[in-house]
C-alpha cells in the first residue's frame, strides 16, 4: 500500500518537474515535503523514473543531511550549533533544550512528538542562539523561549 502511494507521489512530481537527472534534488525535496521522508520505495521509484540506478539515487539521498530515511517527529526543533550561536551561549541552550524537550540532540522523542536536530547556521548570527521550530525562526533562545517551544510542540 505504502509503496503504491509512494510510486504515485513520485510519478506526480516527476510529471511536474521532469525526468532530467538535475531534477533529482528538487524531486527529493518535493516528495519528502509531501510524504515526510525518503524510503527505499521512493528511491526505487525515482531511479525508475529518472533512468538512474538505485545506487545513484541512494548515494544522493544519503549524502545530504536534509533527506531523512525515516519519519521525523510531528514537530521538528532545529537548534543552531555554529560558532556565532556558541559565542552567545549556544552549548548551554542546547543542553537545556535536550533536557526540557526530553530528547537527545539528533534524535526523535519516543512518543514521536518532537525531533531535536542540529543545524549549522540559519544566518541570524548576531541574535543567537537561534532555532527553527517547524520552520519558524526564533532568535535569542533562552530558558523562557525553550519553555514556549516545549509548550508549542506538545500539541
Amino acid at each position, binding site marked *: 500500500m505504502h509503496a503504491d502511494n509512494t510510486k504515485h507521489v513520485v510519478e506526480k512530481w516527476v510529471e511536474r518537474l521532469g525526468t532530467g537527472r538535475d531534477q533529482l534534488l528538487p524531486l527529493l525535496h518535493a516528495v519528502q515535503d509531501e510524504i515526510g521522508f525518503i524510503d*527505499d520505495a521512493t*528511491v*526505487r521509484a525515482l*531511479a525508475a523514473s529518472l*533512468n*538512474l*540506478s*538505485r*545506487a*545513484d539515487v*541512494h*548515494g544522493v539521498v*544519503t*549524502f545530504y543531511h536534509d533527506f531523512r530515511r525515516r519519519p521525523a517527529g510531528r514537530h521538528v526543533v532545529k537548534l543552531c550549533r555554529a560558532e556565532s550561536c556558541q559565542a552567545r551561549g549556544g552549548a548551554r541552550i542546547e543542553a537545556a533544550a535536550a533536557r526540557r524537550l526530553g530528547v537527545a540532540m539528533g534524535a526523535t522523542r519516543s512518543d514521536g512528538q518532537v525531533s531535536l536536530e542540529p543545524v549549522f547556521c540559519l544566518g541570524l548570527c548576531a541574535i543567537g542562539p537561534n532555532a527553527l521550530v517547524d520552520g519558524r525562526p526564533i532568535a535569542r533562545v533562552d530558558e523562557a523561549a525553550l519553555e514556549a517551544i516545549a509548550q508549542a510542540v506538545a500539541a
Partner: protein
Amino acid sequence: MGFTRETDHGTLPALATGANVTLTIDGEHVTLPEGTSIMRAASLTGTAIPKLCASDNLESFGSCRLCLVEVEGRNGYPASCTTPIAEGMVVRTQTERLKELRRGVMELYISDHPLDCLTCAANGDCELQNQAGAVGLRDVRYGYDGATNMGQPKDQSNPYFDFDPSKCIVCSRCVRACDEVQGTFALTIEGLGFGSKVAASQDDAFLASECVSCGACVQACPTASLIEKKVVETGTPDRSVITTCAYCGVGCTFRAEMRGEELVRMVPWKDGKANHGHSCVKGRFAWGYAQHKERILHPMIRTSITEPWREVSWDEAIVHTASEFRRIQEKYGRLAVGGITSSRCTNEETFLVQKLVRQGFGNNNVDTCARVCHSPTGYGLKTTFGTSAGTQDFDSVMQSDVILVIGANPTDAHPVFGSRMKQRLRQGAKLIVIDPRRTDLVRSPHVEAEHHLPLRPGTNVAMLTAMAHVIVTEELYDEAFIRERCDWDEFQDWADFVSEAARSPEAIEPLTGVRAEDVRGAARLYATGGNGAIYYGLGVTEHSQGSSTVMAIANLAMATGNIGREGVGVNPLRGQNNVQGACDMGSFPHEFSGYRHVSDDATRAMFEAAWGVKLDHEPGLRIPNMLDAATDGTFKALFIQGEDILQSDPNTHHVAAGLAAMECVVVQDLFLNETANYAHVFLPGSTFLEKDGTFTNAERRIQRVRKVMAPLNGQADWEIVQLVANAMGLGWSYSHPSEIMDEIAALTPTFAGVHYDRLDAEGSLQWPANDAAPGGTPTMHIDGFARGKGKFIVTDYIPTDEKTGPRFPLLLTTGRILSHYNVGAQTRRTANTAWHPEDRLEIHPADAENRGIKDGDWVGLKSRAGETTLRAQITERVAPGVVYTTFHHPDTQANVITTDYSDWATNCPEYKVTAVQVGLSNGPSDWQEDYADHARQSRRIAPLEAAE
C-alpha cells in the same frame, strides 16, 4: 613460467589532438601528447608517483592525495593525476616536502585500516601495502583507539567475491569502474565524510543489488576489500598465462593466474584488443566447470543407446571409432557418414575435423553450429559485400554517432562489447533498437534508445525495407558513395523496389505493429545522424528470412554510405567464441576454408595436392539434411565435436529421431551432454584451459589460446582427432597446433600472414592478413568492396509460414541471458546458476491475466512441434502477444517447441518465431518425463575394467 604484470599508468591516455608538449620531470625533458596527465607522463618515462585512487582505465579523480607533486611557479601541491602537462612545465615528483605530505596522508589511511597484513588474502598483492612502503610510513601516531570503519560485517553473498568494508579505503575505484567501464552504476558511496562507505544499490547485499558481477570492481580494488573467494581460499597466484576466453564472440583476453596447476583467477588483460581489460561474469568467474565432477575423463563405448556406457582405453575408443566409420561407409556408401565441427573449439581443431571428413570420409558432409546461428550472415554478406564477416573492429563503435541494434541483446549476450557500446551512448551517440523485446539497451540507467521499434517477430525484412523506403523516397541516400562504390543500375532497381507504396512505413504498420512515424524517425536518424553503425544478432538470422534480412541490412549501409571507415559498418555479433573461426575454417558442406566453393577447381586442386587425395566437388549435407537422411535410413554415422545438437537445434523430437536412427554417433565433449544420450562413442574433450590454439572473434580477430594446465583427459582435442584420422590411415603428424595453423595459412589466402610467432608478438591479427594486408584488416571494404562493387539485393518480404491462429495464438521468441552461455553445459556447472537457476517464460501481464497465470506459476508451453513446462515471469519487456524464453536448461528443452522452419537460403532454423499456446500446468510434459528417464538411463557408466 613467470607472472606477467601490467603497468598501470594511472590515467587514461590523452585524447588525440596531434599536439605535443615538452616539459621537465625530475630534471628530464619529456615530450608527450597534449592532455596527458603529469602522473601518466611520469609513469611513461619510468617514474612511479605514489597513487591509490588512480587507474589508467578510469577518469582521474584526485581523491587519494598521494600523487601530489611540485610544479615550479604554482602554489601548493597539485595532484599529478588531475593536472595536465603543459609546455615548459617543470615538475618535481620526489622531494622531501612531498615525502612528508605523502607520509602524512598514508598515516591517515592506515589509522583506519586493519593491520592484519600477514593474514590478509591480498598480502603481497595489495596496492595499499605497496604504497605504504613506497612513501616510507613507519609509524601511525594517531593510535588505534579512535573512530574507525573497521569491524563491519563482510558481504559474502556474491558466489565469486567477498566485500569487506573494513578494508575499504573509499578510493571509489570500484564505483567508478562500475560506472565508467561496465556502465551498470550498481555501486555508490553511501553517506559522506568519515562515514562514507561503498554500497551496492541501496546498501543491498551484492547478490541482491543491480550488480551484474562483471568483476570490474574486484579488479579495481587496491586492497582486499573486494576480493575473489578463490584467492581467499587458495592464496595469491604465482604464475600466469595470457589466453583468450572461451565464452561468446567478443573474445576477451585474460591473464589466467595460477598457483601450481590450480587456476586461481582470471583477470582481464588490459592489452586485450577486444576487451581492453574488461570482462563479464562468465569469462571472469564462470570457469569452474573445467574442474567439475561431471567432467568425463575416460573414453567410453556402448553398442546401443539403451545400454550403460563402458569406459575403455584411448586405443580401444579410437580404433573402434575408425573401424565403425569404415564399416558403415563400406556397408552404406561413402556419403552415409559426416561430421559436425564446433564453434567452441579452436580454429585448428575445427580445421582438423573438416579435414577428417573431406580427406578421410571422402565427402563434404561437414557442417557446424553456425548452421543454426550465423549461416545467413555468411550468405548475406558474401552476396552483398563479398566477405562472410562483419566489417569493423569493436573499437569502431567509439566513432559511431548512430548505433542501430537489431535482433541483438549485447548487454546480455556480448556483455563486454555491450559495455563499450554503452560508453559510447553515454558520450552522446544515438541509439535505435529494433527488437520485439524491450532489452536493457532500450532503457537502463544512463542509456536510453532514441527509437525502439518493437516489431512483431518475423517482420524484420518488412521493417528494414520500410526504412529503406524512407531513405530513398526522402532522398537521404548517399549518391556519391553509391555511384563510386556500387552498381548504380542495381541501386536504381533496388530503389524502385523499396519506393513502392506497399513498402512504406504506413503500409507495413499493420504487419509489424510499429507506428509508421517511429520507423520514419529511425530511418532519418540512421541516414543523417553522422556515422551509422549496425549491430545485429540472432534476432536477424534465425528466421525464415534470415539471409534476406542480412542483405536488407547491407543495403541500408550501402545506400547511406555507412561502410568502409571507422564508426560505421555492418556487424554481426557472433554468439559463440569461435563461430567466426569455425566458418572460416571450411566447416560448411559447400566451402573450403576461406569461403571457397567446393566446385572451384583451382581451390580443390590446392587441397588435393596438400592432402594427397581426390576431393568431392559436390556440396555435402547440412545438419538438418543429415538428420532427414538419417530418418530415411541413408545416413548412418556422425562425428560431433563440441556441439550439443539435441539441445541447441530446433524441433528436438526430429533431432532425437535422426540421432536414434544412426548406427554410430561419436560425441567428443566435456560432459555427457544431451546429444550423448544418443551416442555410441564418447571421446572426452578438454577445456580451453588445457590446450593451445586460436579463436577468431566477431571482429575477425585471431587470438591465441594458451595451455594453462595439462589436459585432465590426457589429450587435447586436436590430438584426439589426429588419433582418429591416423587410425583411418591418414598419416597426420602434427606435433603442435602451430603446425596446423601453418597449413591453414598455406591453404587459405586470407590467412596467409597468420603464424603463431606473429600472434605471440602482436597479440592478435584480424583477417584478411596477407601480403595485401600485412598488418591485418580492422576495417573492411575501405577502398572498395571485397567483391568489387557492392551489390544491392532486392529483398522481398516473404512472411514465414509459421502463423498464429486460434490454437496457437502467441508468438514465442527465444534468446539468452547474461549469466548463461548457449546450452548452458558450462555455465550450469558453475555458481552462475545463482542468477538464473532455470529458464522462465516471459509473458505480458495482459496475456497472463487472460490465462489466469500469476508470476512464478508453472505453465505449459505448446506448439505444433511439442510441449514443455516451465515457470512464468510476468513482465512488460515483451509486448502483448509475444512470449520469450531462454534455452539454457535441458530440463526445459525450449527447442521441443521450435519448429523446423528455417532460412530459405541457409536452413538456419527459425528459432525466433514459433506460434504457441500457454496455459497453467501442474507438472512436466510427457516428453519431459520420458526424456528425463532416457537421460538417466543413458548416463549410466560401467567402470573401466581393471585388467588393461
